């Protein structure tokens, strides 16, 4: 892949342009919320020679104990503000429940810390906009947990999409299906809402903020624009166990030129797993699977002479008047496709994403577009959730648009 093409499709990769210049740099990171996802991120940071995780903060002691196995030298705190008070710390990683993101990230920016914030960025659209504005005001680096931006499969496939390899992408079908209750083990009943925060309205918006956020960004990345309207429905149809967030959501995002992106998530059936299907008139990409498929795949058509005879037969006897034995249903073809990277995927971009954050902290340079992609990913999942809750189609709010040339958006009052 050419450097120029990469710069156009995934300009945030420029973070790594000065990787040799920072070979002897070492940044100090504080980690807020080393729960299960947090420790996954921490495992990469702990191995990064340019990074030293010097402090951990969590209100749940077992999480701190587990995290200390990865970074034994780190100080531990119950209050994240103690990390922010440490002037020697350059940046923080925040991987806490959704409802806490806004305050923690705002406090971190105010303390002059660079911020890596797990998705979704905030609980409301207004908070998300305020966070983005504070990032711009302070000049602090702002990374979001959209690891697909650094996943080689996605980078390669977006390059192909933007070159027109798959033709016109007229629809995106994104889905994430699981078969599980999404619960974590709770040692004591009073910890239920803290540990299973994803299941309660006060701390989460469920499947839209926890899963859709990743995948909707893939759709806008491919289509190069924001949707103008969103409609959706959601319900608790299977896991009626006291949870408050939907276990079954379906949304349609409509773009100005009529193209569509659908999003579905059901957690009572895992047969189709997760995927973002980019449907072009020449081919289909399934980056999660790591494959693409061309439309013209399949057995060669019958000789023209045979086609003509079959057509005559249809005209004489009638074709498919009822679903008899000769009916040929248009089920999906058994097309093996081709690997996007020439082989099965073996990573998801999280490693590169954390490396990029460390590089950015070392250089003090905000990579282009990464904060904006994260910003819009969160806004898309939040407006989708709102459409579900209100039960009616909602436009993408003009007031939530920021200056971002790739999507041709500009806020009414402009952003700095």
């Amino acid at each position, binding site marked *: 892949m050419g450097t120029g093409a990469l710069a156009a499709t995934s300009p945030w990769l420029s973070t790594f342009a000065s990787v040799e210049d920072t070979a002897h740099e070492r940044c100090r990171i504080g980690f807020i919320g080393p729960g299960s996802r947090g420790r996954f991120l921490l495992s990469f940071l702990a191995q990064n020679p340019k990074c030293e995780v010097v402090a951990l903060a969590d209100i749940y002691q077992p999480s701190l104990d587990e995290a200390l196995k990865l970074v034994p030298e780190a100080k531990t705190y119950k209050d994240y503000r103690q990390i922010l008070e440490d002037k020697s710390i350059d940046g923080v990683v925040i991987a806490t429940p959704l409802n806490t993101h806004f305050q923690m990230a705002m406090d971190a920016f105010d303390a002059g810390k660079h911020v890596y914030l797990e998705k979704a960025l905030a609980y409301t659209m207004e908070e998300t906009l305020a966070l983005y504005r504070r990032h711009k005001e302070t000049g602090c680096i702002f990374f979001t947990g959209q690891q697909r931006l650094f996943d080689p499969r996605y980078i390669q496939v977006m390059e192909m999409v933007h070159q027109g390899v798959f033709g016109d992408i007229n629809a995106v079908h994104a889905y994430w299906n699981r078969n599980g209750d999404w619960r974590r083990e709770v040692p004591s009943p009073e910890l239920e809402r803290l540990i299973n925060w994803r299941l309660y309205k006060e701390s989460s918006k469920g499947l839209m903020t926890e899963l859709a956020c990743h995948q909707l960004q893939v759709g806008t990345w491919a289509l190069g624009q924001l949707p103008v309207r969103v409609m959706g429905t959601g319900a608790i149809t299977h896991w009626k166990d006291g949870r408050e967030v939907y276990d079954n959501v379906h949304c349609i995002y409509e773009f100005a030129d009529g193209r569509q992106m659908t999003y579905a998530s059901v957690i009572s059936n895992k047969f189709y797993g997760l995927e973002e299907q980019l449907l072009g008139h020449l081919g289909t990409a399934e980056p999660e699977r790591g494959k693409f498929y061309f439309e013209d795949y399949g057995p060669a*058509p019958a*000789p*023209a*002479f*045979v*086609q*003509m005879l079959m057509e005559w037969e249809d005209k004489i006897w009638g074709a498919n008047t009822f679903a008899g034995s000769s009916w040929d249903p248009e089920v999906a073809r058994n097309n093996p496709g081709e690997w996007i990277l020439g082989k099965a995927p073996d990573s998801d971009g999280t490693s590169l994403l954390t490396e990029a954050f460390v590089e950015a902290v070392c250089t003090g340079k905000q990579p282009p577009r990464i904060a904006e992609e994260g910003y819009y990913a969160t806004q898309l999942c939040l407006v989708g959730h709102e459409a579900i809750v209100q039960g009616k189609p909602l436009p993408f709010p003009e007031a939530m648009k920021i200056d971002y040339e790739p999507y041709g958006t500009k806020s009414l009052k402009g952003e700095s």
Partner: protein
Amino acid sequence: MPYFYLPSRRIRKESISLLVCFVIAVGLNVYAIIHYGAPLSELWTSILYVLEATAVLYAVWILLRLLIYGFLCLIGKQPKNKHRHQYIIHRHQRGHSHHSHHSH
């Protein structure tokens, strides 16, 4: 038991019929290739289909003639064929059939 003998005139006539059927089949293949935008190589690669179609057309042509012949016989208007006795040679004539034919 009688044996059938086809004179060269009839063979020539049937050969022409078969050729006409073949030309029609080839024509249909050319039409199909153009209509479906298929490669010209199907002129050769589909030759078996063309030969099968030739055989079917020829069989239909025979059937059609038999039907017409049968119908004419039914209404008592047996078609005149002054040579029809030449088609049937009885066993006792077998050894002389060739000579007999040329004696005319």
